[in-house]
């Protein structure tokens, strides 16, 4: 019961935060409402009993990516010009609406084979076994590290003064 109430509150907060990102006229306020939506998504992970994922969400998205985006907004000084839309506003809205309708139809008409087993709690240990253990995703973890290194070097090379 508490899970249901929590899910609905967090879902409404997440959707409102995401809507404010596209509706608000000020890019800085849009970034702050994105932070609200990201925190709500972390709560959604908690209701899915994905505790490690919720922690990573707070650390990476709320802690790092949102700060990076806010610094970007401050450095580009476009805040006063606002968060306006281009001339494709109405076609884009219709596209998003049709896409949402198609997704709803597919999600509600597919017979999902839901398992009645209770999920693993806590997930940090099993996730570590999954990522680093035998028959795990260790190669993917290494590639992810190389990808992050390449992204950092690429970002420095592109953003520094010539």
């Amino acid at each position, binding site marked *: 019961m508490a*899970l*249901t109430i929590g899910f*609905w509150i967090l879902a409404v907060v*997440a*959707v409102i935060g*995401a809507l404010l*990102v*596209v509706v608000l006229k000020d*890019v800085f306020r*849009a970034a702050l409402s994105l932070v609200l*939506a990201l925190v709500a*998504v972390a709560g*959604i992970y908690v209701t*899915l009993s*994905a505790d*490690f*994922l919720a922690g990573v969400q707070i650390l*990476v*998205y709320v802690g790092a*990516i949102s700060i*990076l*985006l806010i610094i*970007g*907004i401050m*450095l*580009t000084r*476009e805040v006063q010009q*606002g968060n*306006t*839309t281009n*001339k*494709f506003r109405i076609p*884009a809205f219709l*596209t*998003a*609406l049709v*896409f*949402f309708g198609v*997704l*709803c139809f597919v*999600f*509600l008409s597919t017979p*999902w084979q*839901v*398992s009645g*087993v*209770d999920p*693993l709690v806590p*997930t940090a240990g099993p*996730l570590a076994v999954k*990522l680093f253990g035998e028959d795990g*995703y260790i190669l*993917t973890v290494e590639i992810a590290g190389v*990808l*992050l290194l390449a*992204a*950092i070097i690429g*970002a420095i090379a*592109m*953003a520094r003064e010539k």
Partner: protein
Amino acid sequence: MVGLEHYLLLSAALFSIGLYGVLAKRNAIAILLCIEIILNAVNIALAGFSRYITPLELTGQVFAIFIMVVAAAEATVGLAIIMAIYRSRGSVDATKIDLMKW
């Protein structure tokens, strides 16, 4: 009782909002914000599948973690590109960045 469909519909709603923002926004950084919303929607769907269809496997959560890694890399490189464009052209208006338009 909350089921898999609730999480999938929440994911679909967030994805559609982000899609509208990506298509309709003028400011390149606002487009990056909307891309983050889209990636979070996908992560919710993956965590929901992991919770309700394979509760003991955690594969969906592993995928979600890798998506977060890629999202961090994407935000870094995207912002660096936007900074470079802002320095050379003095604007981050995505409708005016048409150097490669033929």
